[in-house]
C-alpha cells in the first residue's frame, strides 16, 4: 500500500487510527498488526519474509544478551565472543537475504558477462518492498546491541514493531532503535500531535502528488523521446525535472512518514534539510537522505577508521562508503558509477576547493545546482549507452541530428513553466519557514485542506485513469 492511495487515505488510516486511539494499552500490538496488513496488502508473500527476518534477528539479539551460568573467571571473555559471533551471523544473514533478492542477478549477470558464458543461473526474483530499508534498520539494531548503545534487549513485540512500523517500513527514514526506544515503551498521543501530524502528512502528500508526480511527467516526456538526440537545453530541462521529481518524491514520502509518526506518538527523524540550497556536494549529502548518510557514517565509515588513519586510508574508506551507497540505491552499474562519481567529487572537495566553495556566496550554489542534476541523470538512466548519449547531449554533443529541439522545448516550457517555478520555490527553505511560522493560522489550515483534496483528486483521477502519471 502506498500513502498516496485512496485505500490508505480513506480506508486503512482512519480505521487504524480509531483502533489505535481506542485501545491505548495495546498500541504496539495494534501498530504491528496494522503494519503487517499495510505491508501484506501489496506483498502477500514477502510479509512472511519480513516476519522471518524479524524472528531471526530477534533470535540473534537474544543470543547476544544471553547470560548462561558459567564460572566467573572467563565469563566476560565468553560473553564478548558470543556477542561477536551473534553480530557476525546476524549481519551475514541480513546482508545475505538482501544480496540474494537484490544483487544476485546483477552479480551473476556481470560474472557471466565477464566470463563470456552463463555458468551462474539468474533467479529473476522480485525485490521485496522496502527490503533495503528494513534490512539496514535491523543491522543498525544488531550493531547497537553489540556496542552496548542499546543496553537492554528489546522485547519481541517492541522489536517487531520497530522494524515493521508502517510509516517508515517501505521508504524510510532509517530509524535507529535508540531514537524510538523510549516511545516504544510508552507513548502519549495528544490531540495536538494528531493535528500537527496530519498537517505534516498533508504537506508531504502535496509534495509527492502535486509536485513530484507532475514534474515527473516532463522527465518521462523527454526520456520517451530518447536520450542521444536532444538539444542541450532540452537535456538540461530534463535533468532539472528529474532532480525535482526525485527530491519531492522522496522528501514528500519522508515528510508523510514524519507526520504519521507524530500521529502515532513517535518522533521520526527528518531525512531532508533543503539539499538543493547547498554550496557543495559534501553539504548536499549532509542535507540529502540524512538517515542513510549517518547510517553509512556510523556503521561503515567510522568503523573502517574514518579520516583518522592517514590520507590513503581515508580515501580508501570514502571509496568503500560511496561504492556501497551507490549499490544500495540499486543493483546496476549506473548506480556504482553514480557512487564513484560522488566519491571523486567529494574527495576533490575535501582535498581542494570544498571549504572555499562553502564560504562563497554564489559560486557554491551554481556549482551544486549544475552538478547535482548531472549526478541524477547518471542515477536515472540504467542503460549505459543511453546514459552516455544523454551526458553527451548535456554538453551539446550528439552523434546524429537533433530530434528533440527548440520546438519541443518551447512547448515543454509552456506546459510546465508554472510547475517548474513552484518546484524552485519549494526547493528553498522559504515555504517551510512560513509554514512553521503560521502553521496554526486559519489560512494555512485552509490551504492545507486545499492541498489535501487537490491531491486526492489527482490520486482518484490517476486510479480511474492509470495514465495520469504518464499521460499518453
Amino acid at each position, binding site marked *: 500500500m502506498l500513502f498516496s492511495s485512496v485505500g490508505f487515505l*480513506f480506508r486503512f488510516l482512519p480505521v487504524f487510527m480509531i483502533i489505535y486511539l481506542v485501545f491505548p494499552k495495546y498500541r504496539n500490538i495494534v501498530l504491528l498488526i496494522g503494519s503487517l496488513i499495510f505491508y501484506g496488502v501489496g506483498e502477500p508473500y514477502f510479509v512472511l519474509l519480513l516476519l522471518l527476518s524479524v524472528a531471526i534477528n530477534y533470535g540473534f539479539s537474544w543470543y547476544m544478551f544471553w547470560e548462561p551460568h558459567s564460572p566467573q573467571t572467563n565469563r566476560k571473555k565468553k560473553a564478548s565472543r558470543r556477542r561477536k559471533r551473534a553480530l557476525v551471523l546476524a549481519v551475514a544473514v541480513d546482508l545475505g537475504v538482501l544480496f540474494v533478492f537484490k544483487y544476485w542477478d546483477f552479480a551473476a549477470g556481470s560474472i557471466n558477462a565477464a566470463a563470456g558464458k552463463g555458468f551462474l543461473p539468474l533467479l529473476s526474483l522480485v525485490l521485496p518492498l522496502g527490503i533495503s530499508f528494513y534490512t539496514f534498520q535491523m543491522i543498525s539494531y544488531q550493531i547497537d546491541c553489540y556496542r552496548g548503545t542499546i543496553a537492554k534487549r528489546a522485547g519481541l513485540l517492541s522489536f517487531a514493531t520497530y522494524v515493521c512500523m508502517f510509516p517508515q517500513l517501505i521508504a524510510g527514514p532509517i530509524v535507529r532503535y535508540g531514537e524510538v526506544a523510549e516511545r516504544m515503551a510508552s507513548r502519549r498521543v495528544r*490531540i*495536538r500531535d*494528531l*493535528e500537527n501530524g*496530519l*498537517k505534516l502528512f*498533508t504537506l508531504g502528500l502535496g509534495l509527492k502528488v502535486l509536485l513530484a508526480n507532475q514534474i515527473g511527467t516532463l522527465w*518521462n516526456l523527454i*526520456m*520517451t*523521446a*530518447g536520450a*542521444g*538526440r536532444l538539444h542541450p537545453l532540452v537535456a538540461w530541462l530534463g535533468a532539472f525535472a528529474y532532480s525535482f521529481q526525485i527530491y519531492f518524491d522522496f522528501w514528500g514520502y519522508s515528510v508523510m512518514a514524519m507526520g504519521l509518526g507524530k500521529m502515532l506518538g513517535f518522533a521520526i527523524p527528518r531525512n531532508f534539510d533543503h539539499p538543493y540550497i547547498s554550496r557543495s556536494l559534501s553539504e548536499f549529502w549532509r542535507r540529502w537522505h540524512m538517515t542513510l548518510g549517518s547510517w553509512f557514517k556510523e556503521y561503515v565509515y567510522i568503523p573502517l577508521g574514518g579520516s583518522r588513519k592517514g590520507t590513503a586510508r581515508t580515501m580508501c574508506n570514502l571509496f568503500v562508503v560511496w561504492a556501497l551507497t551507490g549499490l544500495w540505491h540499486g543493483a546496476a552499474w549506473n548506480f556504482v558509477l553514480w557512487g564513484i562519481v560522488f566519491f571523486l567529487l567529494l574527495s576533490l572537495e575535501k582535498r581542494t576547493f570544498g571549504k572555499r566553495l562553502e564560504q562563497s556566496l554564489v559560486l557554491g550554489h551554481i556549482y551544486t545546482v549544475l552538478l547535482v542534476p548531472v549526478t541524477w541523470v547518471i542515477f536515472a538512466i540504467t542503460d549505459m549507452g543511453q546514459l552516455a548519449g544523454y551526458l553527451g547531449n548535456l554538453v551539446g554533443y550528439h552523434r*546524429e541530428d537533433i*530530434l*528533440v529541439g527548440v*520546438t*519541443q522545448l*518551447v*512547448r515543454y516550457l*509552456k506546459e510546465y513553466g508554472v510547475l517548474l517555478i513552484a518546484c524552485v520555490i519549494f526547493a528553498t527553505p522559504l515555504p517551510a519557514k512560513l509554514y512553521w511560522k503560521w502553521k496554526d493560522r*486559519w489560512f494555512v*489550515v485552509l490551504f*492545507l*485542506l486545499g492541498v*489535501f*483534496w487537490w491531491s486526492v483528486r489527482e490520486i482518484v483521477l490517476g486510479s*480511474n*485513469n*492509470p*495514465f495520469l502519471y*504518464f*499521460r*499518453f
Partner: protein
Amino acid sequence: MNGNKMRTFLEIIYNCPFILLVIFTSLVFVLFFDGAKEHKDEQEVAVLRLSDEGAEEENSEKGNDIAEESGQKKDDSIENDFENEAEKKADSAQNAGARKEKEDEMTINKDRKTDHTDPGNTGKAGRVEKHTTEFVEYAPIETNSRYYSDAGKIALTTVHDYVLENESYFNDAAFLGDSRTLGISDYAGLAGADFFCDNGMTIYKLLEDDGVTYQRTGEKVDLKEILQEKHYGKIYIMLGMNELGYGDTPMYLKQYLKVIRQIKEWQPGVIIYVMANLHVSREKNNMETEFNNININDKNVASARLANGRDVFYLDCNPLFTDEEGYLQAELTFDGVHLYAQHYDKWRDFLFEHGVEREEVLQTEADGQGKGFEKMGGSDGGSASQ
C-alpha cells in the same frame, strides 16, 4: 460539570481544526461522490438514448427492421460478426448504433447506384474486395473488468491494393490522436500534414469545443470548425489508450463510429485511416489494472470493425514494433508505452506504404467516366446487389 464538558469540547475544536475539517469534508465528499457517480451513469444513459433517437429520427422502426433483414440476407461474414459481437457485448442501444452504420452504408450505396448505374461492373466486385479487414481468432481468456473483455481475435490491416506514397501524399492529411500521434508529429517528419493531438486525448474529447491542440500553432482549436472549413484528403485517427480505463469497449466503439460518421459528413470523399493503438511492453502490461494489451486489442478490434475497405481503412502498425507475443519491444521504448523518437521513421515508412488513392477515383467519378469510375461503381454495385 456540563460547562466543563463544553469547554473540553471547544478546546478540542480549537486544537484540531484541520482534522475536523478533513473528516467533515470527507463525509461531505462521500455523499457527493456517490451522487456524482449516479449522475455520471445517468449521463451515459442519456448519451446512449441520444444516439438511439438519432437513429430513429432518420429511419423509421420499419426501416430499421428492413435494414436488419437485409443485413441478415447479406452474406457478409464481418458484418454478421459485428452484429453478433454487438449483441453479445452490448445493450440494445449498441445494436442500434451498429445497425445505423449499416444503414448509412446502404443509403450511400443506393445513392451511388441510382446516380451511376453501370451494369457491366458487378463482375469485377470479386476482385476489389469490399469488407476486407481480416481477423485472426484465438481462445480468449477470462477477464473480469468493467472496462473491457478479451476480444478473442486480432484485427489485421485492411486488405487493399495500397500504393507506395511519398511525403506529398500527406500535404492534405490530418492526424487526430493522443500522445503517440504527438510523437508522429514530432519525430516522423511529416511536415505537410496537420496534426491535431494532445497528451491524454480521447475519442470523447476530440470534437469538444477548443478540445485539441493544433500542433502547427500550438493553440487549442475547435476541430468541429476546422473539419467543416478545411477539406482534407485523408484523415488518420489513432485513439484508444486513454479510453482504456473509461467507459467500456462498446461505448468506445459507439463514440468512434459517431466521430467517423461526423467526419464523413463534413469531409465528403475523405479517406479515413483508423490506426491501431500500439501495444505496450511486457513490463508495462498489467493484468490487474485495465492497462494491458488485451484491453488495447479489444479497443483495436472494435475500431477495426469500422473499416470497410472503401473509404475507411484499418492500419495495424503493431507488427512493426512488437515481439511474437505482442508486447512492445523493450528496447524501442523508455516507458513501455511510447516509441523512442528515432523509431518513428519506421512508422512513417509504414504510412508511406499504405497509401490509398481515392482522390483520382472521386475526380473521375464526378466526371462520370474513366477507369476509376468503373472501379468505384464495381465495388458499390457489388455490395448493393449481394
